[in-house]
C-alpha cells in the first residue's frame, strides 16, 4: 500500500534517489506526513505574506484571516471529494449540509437559539457533524437508488430547498436576518477573539484540516474506500462482486455531509453570525469546481485546488484593481476586476476543463483512466470498424 498519492507525485523518472526515498517514507507514515506537511505549510504561509509583493496588498493579520476562510473551503472540498471524487456520485447541493452545520452551531450557541451555557464550540463540532450526517442519510436513503444524473438534480433541489426553508421559517431561524451573537470558542477561559487576532482560529482550522485529511486518507485505503472506488468505476460490477451499493453510497453521502457540518460549525463560530444567503447554490458550485479543478479523487490536490481558487476569487481579483491602479497601466487601471469576477471565473472553469479535464493534480488512477479513454478513441486494435467516419 505504498502507491498512494503524495503532494509531490512528480514522475519519479528523473530524480529517483532521494525523492523516491522520501516518497517511500511518506507512503508508510501517511498520518505523520500529513501532520508535518500541514504544519510546515501553515508556518510558511504567514511568513511569505510578510514579504513583498504580498505585504504591500494587506497586513499579515488580514492574510491570516483570509487563509482561515480559505480553510473552510478546503474542508468543504475535501468532504465533497468523498462523494464526487472517491465515490463518483454527483452532489450539486453540498452547501445545504454546510448550512445545516452552521445553523446547528448558531442554534446551540446564540441567544436567539438554545444558548447552552459554557463552551459549546468543541462539542458542537461533533454534534454539527452528526446532525449534517443525519440529514445526509435522510436525503440519501430514498434517492441514492436513482441513476447518477437524477441524483444530481435531487441534490440540486435539496440545496435550493434548505436555504429557502431557513429563509421562510422565521420562527426558528429568524429568516433573512440570520442569527447573530454566536458564542466564540474558548480554551481554558481563553476566548477566541473574532477581530484583531486571527491566530487562534487559524491554528484551529489547520488542526481540523489535518484531522479530516488523516481520517479521509484512512477511509480511502480502507475496505469502504475500495468499495467506493469500485462503485465509481462500475456500479454493476461492484454489485456483482458483493458490494452493497446502497449502503456504501449512503456512507459516502453521510460522511461527506458530516465534513460539511464541521465546516459549517467552524464558519458560524468564526463569523459569529449566519444568514441564509451564505449558503446559496454558488457555494455548492464553487466547491464542486474546486474538487474538479484540484483533481478529483486526490485529497491533497483537492485541498490545494480549493485553497488556490478561494484565494483567486477572494484575494487575487481584488488585488488586480490595486495593482493596475498602482502601476497606472492604461486601459487596465480603468477596469473594475471585481465586476468581472464571475466572468473570469467562468472563463477559467471552461478553459481549465478544455485544457486539462483531469484537474491540476489528478490522482494517478484518474490520469490513467483518461489516457485509456483517449487510446480507445484512436481505435482499438482488435476492432475492424475502428476507423471513424470523419
Amino acid at each position, binding site marked *: 500500500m505504498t502507491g498512494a498519492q503524495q503532494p509531490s507525485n512528480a514522475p519519479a523518472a528523473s530524480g529517483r534517489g532521494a525523492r523516491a526515498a522520501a516518497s517511500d517514507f511518506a507512503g508508510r507514515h501517511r498520518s505523520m506526513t500529513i501532520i508535518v506537511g500541514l504544519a510546515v505549510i501553515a508556518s510558511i504561509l504567514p511568513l511569505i505574506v510578510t514579504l513583498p509583493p504580498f505585504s504591500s496588498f494587506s497586513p499579515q493579520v488580514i492574510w491570516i484571516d483570509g487563509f482561515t476562510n480559505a480553510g473552510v473551503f478546503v474542508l468543504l472540498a475535501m468532504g465533497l471529494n468523498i462523494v464526487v471524487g472517491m465515490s463518483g456520485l454527483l452532489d450539486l447541493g453540498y452547501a445545504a449540509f454546510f448550512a445545516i452545520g452552521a445553523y446547528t452551531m448558531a442554534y446551540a450557541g446564540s441567544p436567539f437559539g438554545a444558548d447552552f451555557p459554557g463552551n459549546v464550540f468543541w462539542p458542537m463540532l461533533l454534534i454539527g457533524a452528526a446532525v449534517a450526517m443525519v440529514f445526509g442519510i435522510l436525503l440519501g436513503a430514498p434517492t441514492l437508488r436513482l441513476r447518477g444524473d437524477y441524483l444530481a*438534480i435531487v441534490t440540486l433541489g435539496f440545496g435550493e430547498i434548505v436555504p429557502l426553508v431557513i429563509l421562510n421559517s422565521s420562527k426558528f431561524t429568524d429568516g433573512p436576518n440570520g442569527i447573530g451573537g454566536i458564542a466564540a470558542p474558548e480554551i481554558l477561559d481563553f476566548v477566541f477573539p473574532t477581530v484583531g487576532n486571527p491566530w487562534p482560529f487559524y491554528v484551529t482550522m489547520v488542526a481540523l484540516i489535518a484531522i479530516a485529511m488523516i481520517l479521509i486518507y484512512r477511509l480511502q485505503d480502507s475496505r469502504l474506500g475500495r468499495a467506493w472506488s469500485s462503485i465509481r468505476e462500475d456500479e454493476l460490477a461492484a454489485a456483482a462482486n458483493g458490494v452493497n451499493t446502497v449502503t456504501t453510497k449512503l456512507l459516502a453521502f453521510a460522511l461527506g455531509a458530516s465534513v460539511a457540518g464541521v465546516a459549517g460549525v467552524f464558519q458560524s463560530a468564526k463569523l459569529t453570525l449566519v444568514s441564509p444567503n451564505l449558503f446559496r447554490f454558488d457555494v455548492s*458550485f464553487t466547491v464542486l469546481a474546486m474538487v474538479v479543478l484540484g483533481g478529483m479523487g486526490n485529497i491533497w490536490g483537492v485541498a490545494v485546488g480549493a485553497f488556490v481558487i478561494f484565494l483567486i476569487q477572494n484575494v487575487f481579483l481584488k488585488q488586480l484593481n490595486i495593482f493596475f491602479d498602482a502601476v497606472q497601466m492604461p486601459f487596465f487601471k480603468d477596469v473594475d476586476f471585481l465586476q468581472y469576477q464571475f466572468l473570469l471565473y467562468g472563463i477559467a472553469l471552461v478553459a481549465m476543463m*478544455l485544457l486539462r*479535464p483531469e484537474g491540476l493534480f489528478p490522482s494517478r488512477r484518474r490520469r490513467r483512466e483518461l489516457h485509456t479513454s*483517449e487510446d480507445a478513441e484512436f481505435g482499438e486494435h482488435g476492432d475492424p470498424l475502428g476507423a471513424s467516419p470523419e
Partner: protein
Amino acid sequence: MTSTALSVSQNPFVEAFRRQRLGPYLFVLALGLGVFFVFGPEQFVNAMTKGAIYALIALGYTMVYGIIELINFAHGDVFMVGAFVSLFVLTNVLGQQGPAADPLVMLGIIGIDILVTGAVMGIIGVTIERFAYRPLRNAPRLAPLITAIGVSFILQNIIQIIYGPSPVNTPQIIPPTARVQIGDVSIGWINIFIISVSIALMIGLQAFVGRTKIGRAMRATAQDREAAQLMGVNINRTIAVTFFIGSALAGVAGVVQGLYLGNISFTLGFQAGLKAFTAAVLGGIGNIAGAALGGFVIGFVEVSAAASGLAVWSQAAVFAVLIITLVFRPSGLLGQQLGERA
C-alpha cells in the same frame, strides 16, 4: 419491459388504456381541472401560461439530455439571454417602448422579435456547444457539466455588465389590459398568445423530430451514437441542430417572458432553468411530450402553492414534487423504463 409484460391486465379497457399511455395525460388534465375549480379560471390561465414558458425551456433540456446525456446547466441562462436579446430587438432595433397601436402591427413586431431572437439564440447555443461541449464529448461526464456551469457564469456576467444588476423593464407589446371577456371571466390576450405559441411550437417540434430526416437522425443519435454514425448520420451536425432548436426555443421563451412580466433580470435564468429541468425530469427526460406535460405540472404546482397563500414555499413545493416523482416513478411521467446505464 418484462415487468410490464408480466402485469398485463385481462381487462381490455385497462389494456387499451395502458397501450395508449393515456394515464399521464389524464393525470395532468385532472391536476389542471383541480386548479381550475379550486382556485378559479384566472389562476388556471396563469398556471397554463407559466407552464407553457417552463415547457418551452424544458424542451431544450430534454432534447440535449436525450442526445448527449448532458445536463446543460447553461440552458437556463440561454433563456435569460434570450429575454435580453428580445429587449434589445424591441427597443433598439424596432424602437418600441410600450404597447403597439393596433393588433396587426403588434403581431408583426412580435413575429419579427421571435424570429430574430430565436435565430440569435440558436446561433449562440450552437457556439456554446462547439466550444464548450464538443471538445469534451469523450471526457468524463463531470467535465462538460463543469464547463456548462462556467458558461452559465459567463452569460450571467456579460448580461450583468451590459444591463446592470437590477431588473430592467421590457416593453409589453401586448398590453396586460387587453383582455377578452368570457362570461364573467376575463383572460389576458397575452396569456392566450403565450399558450398558443408554445403549444404550436411543441406540436411543430414533435412533427419535426418524428417526421423529418434530421429528426430521424436525432432519434438515431440519441439511441446509439456510434451505430448512427456507422449508418452515415453526421453526428456533429445532428447535435448542433439539436442545440440550435433547443436554444431557439429557450430564446422564444425569453421573448414571451419579457412580454408577460414586463421586467427581466440577469438572475432570471437559474431559477427558471432549475424549474424547467425539473419539468423535463418530471415528464421523463429525453421525451418531448413529457417535457411539455412536466412544464404544465410545474406551472400548476407553483400557482397552486402561490394561490393558497404559500407563495414563499412554491419553489420548495416544486422540488418536493420532483423528489417524490423520482422516488416513486424515477423514469418520469412518460419516460421509458431505462435500465442502468453507465
